[in-house]
């Protein structure tokens, strides 16, 4: 299908582009911007005046729950929800059942995602076999199977020596190591930031040092091994400063933050609100401000949803006994637009952290993911920046309905999501004619 998106404000930070332009799509790819390619006759025209067109969003952290936890969500249900949020590429980690430590499981996930047809799925394979933290996974095979990196999800490694060897072996295969920095012993049984709120509520705390100690160790070993490493999601201001310093020193390190850590703090736990039970924990206002600063300066190159859908029962227990995590793919874009509204960062910077930023971290920028340059896949998110909507859990498409943003009025509604030029989500109120 040949498609003309007419009159939209095209925001594509990968090309430093922000302005009203016509967008020409053909054969599942971007054909041209501004002027039509020779002989271009569109099959359909989308009148997009007042809307923003940007590359399809790339979400670094989406748990699809399948295989292993289909009662929480499936590849089809969660990629469909992601598409509704304007996301066209999701990255997922290895903590499935079975663990993604063999090419077979990685293939299974990608195959099912392909059949569902809503999103591209990038897979970060296991760093250790069965995520046991001790035995290296077969990274050569995982790389051959198309894994974009290796990581141990949120499971701990046995010790620093295993991490060192894993980094060296990953570097051998040119794989990025993805680490969720948290010292398991300092974390202990904590379920909330160790601070005034955990003290008041009597919740076992997770100290700031659980994150900073792990970041320090990871940075020392990156220095030692030279591996490319990605740390996140970060939750503390101090960890952001440590990564900023390391990047200044030339270490090949990137980092990300979740959208909810940019908006919420420990105070939002209120009276044991289990929807705010997330890992890493929501921290102080100072931390939230430090994360926002790191986002603006670019130390945090990507904002992820850290989407973790749960069945209703998972949060029906006293706070410490509830499952951590929230459903985030459908609020990711709007939460970033809210930061734009609050003048924390410019629209083009916000879009960068959702498109080319994460695409570069995943090593997918070369293939045109996260970009609308001619020749790139026609993965597109078209949204109405002026529309406002109120978050209602029951209206989410994800199987998981837990969101601490319940009742928030947020800016920005996705009008159309294209995956390789094919509509995978369309808002009938804005675009009544199906494409």
């Amino acid at each position, binding site marked *: 299908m040949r498609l003309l998106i007419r009159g939209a404000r095209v925001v594509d930070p990968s090309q430093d582009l922000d302005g009203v332009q016509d967008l020409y799509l053909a054969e599942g790819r971007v054909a041209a911007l501004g002027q039509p390619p020779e002989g271009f006759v569109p099959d359909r025209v989308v009148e997009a005046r007042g809307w923003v067109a940007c590359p399809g969003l790339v979400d670094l952290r989406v748990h699809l729950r399948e295989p292993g936890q289909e009662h929480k969500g499936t590849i089809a249900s969660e990629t469909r929800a992601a598409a509704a949020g304007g996301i066209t590429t999701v990255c997922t980690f290895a903590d499935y059942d079975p663990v993604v430590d063999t090419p077979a499981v990685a293939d299974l996930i990608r195959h099912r995602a392909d059949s569902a047809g809503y999103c591209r799925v990038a897979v970060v394979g296991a760093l250790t076999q069965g995520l046991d933290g001790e035995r290296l996974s077969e990274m050569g095979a995982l790389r051959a199977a198309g894994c974009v990196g290796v990581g141990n999800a949120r499971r701990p490694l046995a010790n620093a020596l295993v991490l060192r060897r894993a980094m060296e072996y990953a570097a051998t295969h040119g794989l990025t190591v993805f680490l969720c920095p948290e010292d398991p012993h300092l974390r202990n049984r904590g379920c909330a930031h*160790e*601070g*005034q709120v*955990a*003290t*008041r*509520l*009597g*919740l*076992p*705390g997770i*100290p700031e040092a659980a994150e900073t100690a792990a970041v320090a160790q990871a940075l020392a070993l990156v220095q030692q091994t030279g591996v490319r490493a990605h740390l996140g999601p970060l939750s503390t201001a101090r960890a952001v400063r440590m990564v900023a310093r390391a990047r200044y020193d030339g270490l090949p390190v990137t980092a990300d933050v979740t959208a909810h850590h940019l908006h919420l703090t420990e105070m939002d736990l*209120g*009276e*044991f609100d289990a929807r705010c039970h997330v890992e890493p924990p929501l921290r102080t206002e100072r931390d939230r401000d430090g994360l926002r600063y790191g986002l603006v300066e670019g130390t945090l190159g990507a904002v992820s949803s850290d989407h973790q859908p749960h069945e209703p*029962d998972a949060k*029906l*227990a*006293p*706070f*410490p*006994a509830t499952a951590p995590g929230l459903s985030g793919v459908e609020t990711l874009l709007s939460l970033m637009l809210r930061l734009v509204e609050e003048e924390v960062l410019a629209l083009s910077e916000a879009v960068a952290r959702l498109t080319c930023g994460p695409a570069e971290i995943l090593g997918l920028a070369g293939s045109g993911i996260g970009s609308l340059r001619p020749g790139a896949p026609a993965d597109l998110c078209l949204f109405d920046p002026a529309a406002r909507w109120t978050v209602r859990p029951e209206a989410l498409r994800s199987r998981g309905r837990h969101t601490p943003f319940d009742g928030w009025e947020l800016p920005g509604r996705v009008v159309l999501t294209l995956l390789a030029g094919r509509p995978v989500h369309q808002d009938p109120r804005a675009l009544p004619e199906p494409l």
Partner: protein
Amino acid sequence: MARRSLQLDEHGRLRHFLAIEGLGRELLTEILDTAESFVGVTAQAVKKVPLLRGKTVVNLFFEASTRTRTTFELAAKRLSADVLNLNIPASATVKGETLLDTLHNLEAMHCDMFVVRHADSGAAHFIARHVRSGTSVINAGDGRHEHPTQALLDAFTIRRAKGGFGHLVVAIVGDILHSRVARSQIHALTTLGVPEVRVVAPRTLLPAEVERLGVHVHHDLREGLRGADVVIALRLQHERMQGAFLPSEHEYFQLYGLREEHLAVAKPDCIVMHPGPINRGVEMASSVADGPRSVILQQVSHGIAVRMAVMALAMGATHRREATREVGTKGERA
């Protein structure tokens, strides 16, 4: 505030009793005054008032307790309620049946009040959010969060011994970090007007930013006890030696155990309290526990009157006047 709406009805009266935090001085004083009116009941030959006649109270204990459960049971029985004691080991809920399943099964039996103890902070709030309206939930201790009836019986004991709160220095000594009693005490005492509440402990046993609860922090026992009117020692669990919180009970007793010589720097008429059960020779010397300053056994007997007051008030606002009429004594304000 969400907390207010969960514990209190639209008239500011108790619906549940979950935490001291969020309750005002007037309400706490009303509970203490009501408890005062019940002290007479427990001294009578027929130790019963009919306030909760026909009501069913369930003691729902997910964590072992003898003293608290027994005093709740006695309190309910003296209010003429039917009492059901359920001790549910944590393993039972792990194996399939959720806390909500348990709760809904009991609700099907038409119970009017749940007295809940649970190892997780927030358990009583969770249950209160999910019970049918009209059912009251009393928190008998949730994780490290609060143990509000214990704090009120302590306040009651202090008021009886000292005549009020406005001039007192209260020192709470020991494992503040793991103590739900300490959190409730701090809120109760600061709300009732105690001008100086101190916590005395090594850093390993103090929660982060504890001073934000409105307390003065001391690490040295003598300094912490200087000029104190009330000294409350907290129970130290044996497992604290395993988690690298403390080197040994011996050293703890040397540095934080209450002995007569430490109390010399406190006020001459200082009282000593403990929520029990006491580890003698760890939190305090036997000579202190059994000595003239100790009000530990009075705390236990006050526990019944205070729990009667909380149960009566949570079941209906008009009960206090009825209670005082039946008993024929008037609540005395200290």
